[in-house]
C-alpha cells in the first residue's frame, strides 16, 4: 500500500464515517493485521470507541477479522475502501439496467454495507411509496423480483454464512463465501421454512417470512460490466455504432460463461451472434459476417477469430482490449501533458519497442535538440525508461547501448499512483473550500429552513422577500462560486475514478495472466 493510497483511504473514511473510524482505519492500513489491544494502543482511543469503529468497518466490508494465535486479528481492505469513490457509478448503472427500484436497492445496500433481504425490500418499498402518488403503494413482490434479478446477475451477493454448530471459544470462523446454488435456494417461496445444507440460518418469524441471510454489494460483476461498457464505447469510437452493437451482443452472451479474469471470452459462432442481435438491428447475415471480419482484422484486436465452424467462431479478447484501453489512456495523458510532438515520440516508442536516441530523432522527424529535451522530460516523469545493453562485460558507459522503451505496466502503475494522489488533492481542496465558507453555508441553510417553515405556515410574499434579503448579493455571489467550484471538483473526482478503473483493470489482468 503506497502512501498515496493510504492518504486517499483516510480521506474517504473521514468523509463518510467520521474521525474515529478514520483513525482506526488508517492505523490498520499502516500497520497491517492487529489485535484489538494493538489498535487501541496505536491510536490512543478508548477501547469502546475502537470496538464501535471496528463494528462499522466490518459491517461495511471494509475490514475483515480472523482468529489468530489466541486472539482475533483485524485487517483493513485498502482496495475495498477505494471503491467508495465508485459508489455513484454503481448506483447509476443499476438505475440504467434495473430502473428506479434497482437503483434504490443498490443505494440502500451501499449505505448499510450488509442487510437482510427483508430489510432491503421493506426500506426500498417505503421509499418508493413516498415518491408515488397518494393512495398507491409499492408492492413488496416487485421489489423482491428486482432484487432477485440483481442477485442473478451477481450485482448483489450473499455474505458468508455463520455456521450454526458449536462455536470456537473466541470467534465464529467465517466459512468461504456461498456458492451460486444456495443463492438460488434463497428464492424459494418464503413462507416455507428454508431447508438448507445445514449451514443455513433459521428463517425468521416475520409475516412475509423472508429469509434472514444478509446481502452485500458485489464488486466483481459491476467491474466486469464497466469493463464491457468501456470496450463497447471504444469500439463505437473507433468504428461505428453497428460494430459496437455486435460487440455488445457478444459480451452479453458471454456474461455468464466467462469466468472473471479470463483473457478472452468463450468462442461464439457467427450464427449464434446473428440470432442474439437486438430486435432493432435488422442486418443481413452477410453484413454481419463482414463486420466480424473487419473487427477481427483490426490491429487493436478486440475481436479474434478462433475457428471456422458455425460460420466462424469469434471471441472478444478481453486482455488485449484492456491493454489497448490502458495504452490509449497513457497516450492521451502524454499528449495533454507534454504536447503532440512528445505524443508522437511516445507512440513511436510503443510501436518500435526499443530505440536509441539517434533513431528516435530520425523516425519521429523531430530536430535532435527538441527530441532530446522531450525524451528527458518523459524520462524524468517515468513514462519512458532506459534499457542498457552493454557491449563489453565491464559495462563501460562509452561502450553501452542505451535504448529508450515504454514499459506499459510500469507506466500504468505510475499513472495509477498519480491518479490516487490527484483524487486525494481534489478532496482536500474541496474540504478546504467548504471549510472556508462554512459560516456562509450555515447561514444560507438557516435562511432556507426559516423560509421553508414560513411557507409551510403560510406567509406573505413580502415577509419571504425580507427573509431572502438576509443574504446579501455579494454573499449570494460567493455561494454561487462555491457551489460551482465544489461541483466541478466532484465531477473531476468522478472522472478520475473512471481512469483509475481502466488502469486497475489493466494491471489486474496483467497480473492474473499465467
Amino acid at each position: 500500500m503506497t502512501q498515496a493510497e493510504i492518504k486517499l483511504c483516510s480521506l474517504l473514511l473521514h468523509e463518510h464515517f467520521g474521525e474515529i473510524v478514520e483513525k482506526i482505519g488508517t492505523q490498520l492500513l499502516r500497520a497491517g493485521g492487529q489485535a484489538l489491544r494493538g489498535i487501541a494502543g496505536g491510536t490512543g482511543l478508548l477501547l469502546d470507541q475502537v470496538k464501535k469503529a471496528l463494528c462499522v468497518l466490518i459491517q461495511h466490508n471494509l475490514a475483515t477479522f480472523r482468529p489468530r494465535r489466541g486472539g482475533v486479528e483485524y485487517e483493513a481492505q485498502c482496495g475495498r475502501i477505494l471503491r467508495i469513490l465508485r459508489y455513484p457509478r454503481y448506483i447509476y448503472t443499476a438505475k440504467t439496467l434495473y430502473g428506479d427500484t434497482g437503483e434504490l436497492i443498490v443505494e440502500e445496500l451501499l449505505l448499510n454495507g450488509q442487510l437482510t433481504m427483508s430489510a432491503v425490500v421493506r426500506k426500498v418499498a417505503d421509499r418508493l411509496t413516498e415518491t408515488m402518488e397518494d393512495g398507491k403503494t409499492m408492492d413488496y413482490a416487485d421489489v423482491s423480483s428486482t432484487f432477485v434479478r440483481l442477485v442473478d446477475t451477481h450485482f448483489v451477493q450473499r455474505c458468508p454464512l455463520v455456521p450454526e454448530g458449536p462455536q470456537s471459544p473466541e470467534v465464529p470462523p467465517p466459512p468461504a463465501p456461498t456458492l451460486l446454488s444456495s443463492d438460488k435456494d434463497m428464492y424459494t417461496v418464503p413462507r416455507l421454512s428454508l431447508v438448507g445444507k445445514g449451514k443455513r440460518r433459521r428463517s425468521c418469524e416475520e409475516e412475509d417470512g423472508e429469509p434472514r441471510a444478509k446481502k452485500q454489494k458485489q464488486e466483481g460483476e459491476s467491474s466486469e460490466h464497466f469493463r464491457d461498457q468501456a470496450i463497447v464505447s471504444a469500439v463505437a469510437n473507433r468504428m461505428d455504432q453497428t460494430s459496437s452493437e455486435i460487440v455488445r451482443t457478444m459480451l452479453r452472451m458471454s456474461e455468464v460463461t466467462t469466468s472473471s479474469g479470463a483473457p478472452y471470452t468463450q468462442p461464439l459462432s457467427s450464427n449464434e451472434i446473428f440470432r442474439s442481435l437486438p430486435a432493432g438491428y435488422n442486418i443481413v447475415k452477410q453484413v454481419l459476417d463482414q463486420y466480424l471480419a473487419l473487427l477481427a482484422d483490426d490491429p487493436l484486436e478486440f475481436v479474434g477469430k478462433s475457428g471456422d465452424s458455425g460460420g466462424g467462431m469469434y471471441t472478444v479478447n478481453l486482455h488485449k482490449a484492456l491493454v489497448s484501453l490502458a495504452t490509449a489512456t497513457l497516450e492521451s495523458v502524454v499528449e495533454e501533458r507534454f504536447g503532440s510532438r512528445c505524443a508522437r515520440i511516445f507512440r513511436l516508442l510503443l510501436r518500435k519497442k526499443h530505440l536509441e536516441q539517434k533513431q528516435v530523432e530520425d523516425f519521429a522527424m523531430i530536430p535532435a535538440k527538441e527530441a532530446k529535451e522531450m525524451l528527458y522530460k518523459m524520462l524524468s516523469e517515468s513514462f519512458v525508461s532506459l534499457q542498457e545493453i552493454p557491449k563489453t562485460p565491464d559495462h563501460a558507459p562509452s561502450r553501452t547501448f542505451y535504448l529508450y522503451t515504454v514499459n506499459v505496466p510500469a507506466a500504468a502503475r505510475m499513472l495509477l499512483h498519480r491518479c490516487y494522489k490527484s483524487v486525494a488533492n481534489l478532496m482536500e481542496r474541496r474540504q478546504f473550500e467548504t471549510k472556508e465558507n462554512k459560516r456562509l453555508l450555515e447561514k444560507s441553510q438557516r435562511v432556507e429552513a426559516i423560509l421553508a417553515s414560513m411557507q409551510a405556515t403560510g406567509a406573505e410574499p413580502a415577509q419571504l422577500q425580507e427573509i431572502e434579503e438576509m443574504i446579501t448579493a455579494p454573499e449570494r455571489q460567493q455561494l454561487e462560486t462555491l457551489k460551482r467550484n465544489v461541483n466541478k471538483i466532484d465531477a473531476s473526482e468522478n472522472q478520475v475514478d473512471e481512469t483509475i478503473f481502466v488502469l486497475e483493470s489493466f494491471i489486474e489482468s496483467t497480473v492474473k495472466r499465467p
Partner: protein
Amino acid sequence: MAGSGRGRGRAAFTFDIGAIGFSKGAALPDVVCQPPPPFPSTDNKPVPLKTGEDEDYMLALKQDLRGTMKRMPYFLAVEEDCEAIERYSKKYSEKKHAVWTPDWRRLPREMKPRKKTKKAGAKPKKAKSSEPKSNLDVLKKIEELEKKDDEEEKSEDEKDKTKDKEGEDDDEAEEPEEYDEEEHEEENDYISSYFEDGDDFGAGSDDNMDEATY
C-alpha cells in the same frame, strides 16, 4: 590519458557524450540545485471535464450519498463536549441519531460491549431498592467511623460485601466511598472552612523574613 585527470581543464565524462546527443562544445543544460516548484505553471491546460446527463446525475448522486452518510448511525463523530456557554438553540437543534446494533453472531465475541454496561440499564430499577440500603449503610458507617481504629478496614469490607452481593454495581460502592471521604475529611483537624473569610494566611508573613516562624 584523455579525460582521466581530475584537475585538468574541463570536466570530462567516462562515456562518449555524443551518444546522448550533445555535440562537442555544446552548452550543457543547467544543474538542478533544488526540488521543482510545487505548483509549476503548465503550458498545456487540462481538457475540460465531460458534461452530459449521465455525469450530472452521478454528480448529484455523489453529493446525496455524502450527505446521507453523515446522517447514518455509522457515522461516528467526535463529540465536542467543551461548550463554554450552553446555548438555548442547542435544545432544539439536537437530532436523534438512529441507534444501530450489529448482528453479534457475525462478529467476534470481544466486540460485544461487556456485561457491566448492560447492567447499567438495570441500574435505574435497582436505584430505588439500593437507596434505602445505602442510607442504612451510611448510618452504619457513621457509627463505625466513630471508632477510629477499624474505619478503613470495615469500609473496605462493606465494599467487598456489596460487590459480592450484587456482583457489579460500581455505583453502590462509590456512594459509600463518597460518604467515607466526606466523613474522613471532617475528621481531620485541618478543616477546609478554617480559612474562609478573608483570612490571608500567607500574605503577611512574606514581608519580614527576619522573624522566625513558629
